[in-house]
C-alpha cells in the first residue's frame, strides 16, 4: 500500500506539470494539443542538460536539466504561439502537428544525437544522475516510516512541481495578471478594449505553460524512470501528455484542484501494476489489465457531462478557447 501511494505520487507529478502548463495555455484562450509533444521535447532537453552537467554535482545537474528542458519546451511552445497567435492558424491542427513532431524529434534526438547505448553511450551517466541527484530525498524521510516515504521521500522536482501549481493558482485567483489573463481567454475583445495587450499575454502564457509542461517530460525520464532511457520513452510521455489534457477538464481548469486530480489520475495509471495487491485472489488477463488505464478517460467524460449539465459557467472552459482573435473583427 505504501509503495502504491508512493508510486502514485511519483507519476502524479508528471500529470501535475503537464496539466498546470495546459491550464495556463488554455486560460489564454489557446487549446494546445501540442502539449504531449512538448513534454517529449522537454524530456529530450532535460537529458541534454544532464549530459552537459556531466554529473559534477547534483545542484548543477538539476539546474542544467531544468534550464535545457525549459529552453527546448519553450522553443516548441514558441512555434505553436507564433503559428496560432500571430498567424492565426487553426489551433487543433497546429497542436496535433506539434505533438507528432515532438514525439519524433525526441526519439531522434535522444537515440542519435546523444547516444545512450554502445561505445561512449551516456546511459550510465544518466542513470547515475537519476539515482544520485534526481531521486535524492530528504534524509529524515526514511526515519518516519511509511508516512515519511510517501510525503517526504520524493525527489526535489516533486515539491518544485507542487510549488508551481500553488503559485499558478494564486496568480490566477488573486492577482491583476491573473484577472487580465482570464479576461484574455474569456473575451479577448473585452480585454483589448480594457487596454490589455492580448498578444503579449497569449505569448507569455503559452510559453510559460509549455515550459512547465516540458518539465513534466524531464520528471518522467530523470526522476520517475531514474535516468533509464528506453526506446519507448517518447510514446509513453506522449500518452501521459494526452491524459494531462483530459486532466485539465477533470480539474475544471483549476490549478489547485489539479494537485488532487493528478494524484487520482496517477493512482489509476499505475493501478494495473498493483492490481494483485488489491485483489490477491483474482487473476486478470492481459486484456483486462489494459482496461484500467482507460478509467481516467471515462472519468473525464463523466466530469464533462456532469459539469455541462450543471451549467455553471465558472466550471466551463474559457469562453474563447480555440478561437483566434482579430482586432479588426470588432
Amino acid at each position: 500500500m505504501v509503495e502504491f501511494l508512493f508510486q502514485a505520487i511519483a507519476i502524479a507529478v508528471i500529470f501535475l506539470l503537464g496539466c498546470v502548463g495546459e491550464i495556463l495555455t488554455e486560460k489564454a484562450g489557446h487549446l494546445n494539443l501540442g502539449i504531449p509533444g512538448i513534454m517529449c521535447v522537454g524530456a529530450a532537453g532535460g537529458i541534454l542538460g544532464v549530459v552537459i552537467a556531466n554529473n559534477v554535482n547534483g545542484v548543477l545537474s538539476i539546474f542544467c536539466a531544468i534550464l535545457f528542458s525549459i529552453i527546448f519546451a519553450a522553443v516548441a511552445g514558441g512555434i505553436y504561439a507564433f503559428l496560432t497567435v500571430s498567424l492565426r492558424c487553426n489551433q487543433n491542427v497546429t497542436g496535433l502537428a506539434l505533438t507528432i513532431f515532438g514525439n519524433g524529434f525526441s526519439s531522434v534526438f535522444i537515440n542519435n544525437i546523444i547516444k545512450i547505448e554502445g561505445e561512449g553511450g551516456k546511459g550510465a551517466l544518466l542513470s547515475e544522475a537519476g539515482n544520485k541527484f534526481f531521486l535524492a530525498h530528504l534524509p529524515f524521510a526514511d526515519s518516519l516510516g511509511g508516512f515519511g516515504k510517501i510525503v517526504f521521500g520524493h525527489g526535489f522536482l516533486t515539491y518544485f512541481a507542487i510549488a508551481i501549481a500553488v503559485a499558478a493558482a494564486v496568480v490566477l485567483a488573486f492577482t491583476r495578471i491573473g484577472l487580465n489573463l482570464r479576461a484574455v481567454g474569456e473575451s479577448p475583445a473585452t480585454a483589448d478594449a480594457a487596454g490589455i495587450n492580448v498578444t503579449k499575454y497569449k505569448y507569455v502564457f503559452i510559453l510559460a505553460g509549455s515550459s512547465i509542461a516540458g518539465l513534466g517530460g524531464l520528471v518522467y525520464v530523470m526522476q520517475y524512470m531514474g535516468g533509464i532511457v528506453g526506446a519507448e520513452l517518447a510514446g509513453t510521455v506522449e500518452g501521459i501528455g494526452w491524459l494531462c489534457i483530459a486532466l485539465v477538464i477533470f480539474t475544471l481548469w483549476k490549478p489547485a484542484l489539479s494537485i488532487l486530480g493528478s494524484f487520482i489520475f496517477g493512482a489509476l495509471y499505475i493501478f494495473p501494476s498493483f492490481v494483485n495487491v488489491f485483489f490477491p485472489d483474482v487473476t486478470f488477463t492481459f486484456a483486462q489489465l489494459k482496461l484500467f488505464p482507460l478509467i481516467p478517460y471515462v472519468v473525464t467524460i463523466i466530469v464533462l457531462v456532469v459539469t455541462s449539465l450543471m451549467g455553471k459557467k465558472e466550471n466551463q472552459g474559457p469562453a474563447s478557447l480555440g478561437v483566434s482573435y482579430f482586432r479588426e473583427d470588432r
Partner: protein
Amino acid sequence: MHQLELRNITKTFGSVVANNNVSLTLEKGEILSLLGENGCGKTTLMNMIAGIYYPDSGSILINGEEVSIKSPIDAFNHGIGMIHQHFKLVDVFSATENIVLGYKEEGRFNLKKSAIKVKEIADKYGFIIDPKKKIYDMSVSEKQTVEIVKVLFRGADILILDEPTAVLTPQETRKLFDVLRKMKEDGKSIIIITHKLNEVMEISDRVAVLRKGEYIGSVNSKETSESQLTEMMVGKKVELNIDRTEPKDPKDRLIIKNLSTIRDDGLPGVRNIEFTARSGEILGIAGIAGSGQKELLEAIAGLSKIKSGTIEYINPENEEIVNLCLKSPRQIRDLGVRLAFVPEDRLGMGLVGNMDLVDNVMLRSYEKGKLDLLDRKTPGKLTDQIVKDLEVVTDSVNTPVRRLSGGNVQKVLVGREIASVPKVLMAAYPVRGLDINSSYLIYNLLNEQKENGSAVIFVGEDLDVLLALSDRILVLNGGHITGIVDARSATKEEVGLLMTKSVVVEEE
C-alpha cells in the same frame, strides 16, 4: 474654453466617407445629443474620441489643448469614457472584476477595496449595483450600469453613451436619465447618441445633428421642435431617377394579421403587425435599424418563432388561402408558395462564401437531381444566365462567392431568388454597400418583378430611395407599425417623424 472640441474631423473607410469635415464642441456640465439617421457617422465620430479609430485628418482638443487619442487607454487618460452599444464585459466575472479589468491602480490588487469604491460611486449617482454579482446573472440594464460605473471608476469627465436606451424599458430609461442628470450636476459632460426625438428633448441641453457624415448644425433643445430636428436629420428631398409604374391589377397576396414574434434571445420581436402586401406593388419598409424589419421578414419566411397572429398567402392560381405561420421554409415551399427572400446578411444567410456560384445557385434546386446524384447542369446554365443578365463580374462561375465584391455577391443572390419566379419577393437592404450603378440595377430588378405581378417587400434605409421606388411605405419603430403611407404623396419629414415616433405600450 470647451471641455471637448472636434475640428474638421474626416474619416474614410476605403472609398466610403464616414465623417467629412465635422466640427463639434462640448461644454463642461452639458448633455449633448448626437442625432442622425443610420450610417450617418455618429458612432464612427464617437469612436474616434474613444480611441477605437484614428481620424484621417482634423484635430481633437480637450480643455483647449490638442490631444492625440490612439487607443482606449489614451482616451481614459484624457478622462474620456465610452459606453458602447454592445457591452464589452466578461461573462464569468463579477461586476467589480469587470470594472477593474485593465485598470492600473496604485498599490496592491485588492478586489474588496475596489468593491467598496464601486459601491461609493454607485451611491453617489444613484445606481443600484451588486459588486459581487456575475455578469451572466445580470439584466441588460444592470450590465449597462456596470459599463457606466467602469467609466466613472477610471475618473472619466466626458462620457459618451451609444444608444443607451435602445435596450432599456421605459422605466429603466427614466432611471438612467436621473443618473445622467446627477452626473451633469457633478460637472461631467455627456454625449448621448440616439434616434429617439422625445428622449432628445427630455434629456439634452443641446442637440447636434449629423447627416451622411456631415455636421449639419446644433440647436438648444429648449428652442427647437421635433419637426425642426427631423428636417435637419433627413434633409431636403432628393429627386432620384427611378421609374415607378402604376401597380397593375393589384390583388391581395399576403395578409398579415396581429402578428407578434419572439426573438432568439427571448425578447419580443415585432408586435401586433397588420398589413397586406399586394401583387404588382412594391411595399417599402422604413425604420431605424433594429426596429423589427429583420424579425418581420424572417417570420414570413418561416425562420422565426411566432407568438401569435396569422400570415395568409393567397395563391394566385387557385385563390386558395394558406396560413404560413409555424411552418418551416421547406413546408412553405412544398405547399406551392412561391416566396423568395433576399436576407440582409448575404454571406451568412443568403449564400455560402466558400462555395462557387453554381453550387450557391444550386442550393435552391439540389434536390431535383436524378436518383441521389446532383444535377449541376441546369443550375450551371442558370448561373451563366445570371452572370450575363446581371453583369456579375467574376473570373468564372466556379469562383468561391466570398471572392466577389459586395455588389456582385448581391447580384448572384438576387438573381437566384428572382430565377425562382417568386410571387412574393422580400429583399432586406438589397443595395447596402453597393455603388450607384449596382444599386440602380437592383432597383430595376425589383421593378421588373413588380411588373411581373410579384408582391415585392423592400426594406430600405435611404428614405429618398424608399419614397421614389415604393408604392406604399410601412414604417416600423420598436417592433410596432407606426404608420403606412402612400409613397407618392408622403414627404420625407412625415416618414422621418413616424420612424422616431414612440409607441407607448402597456408592459405585459
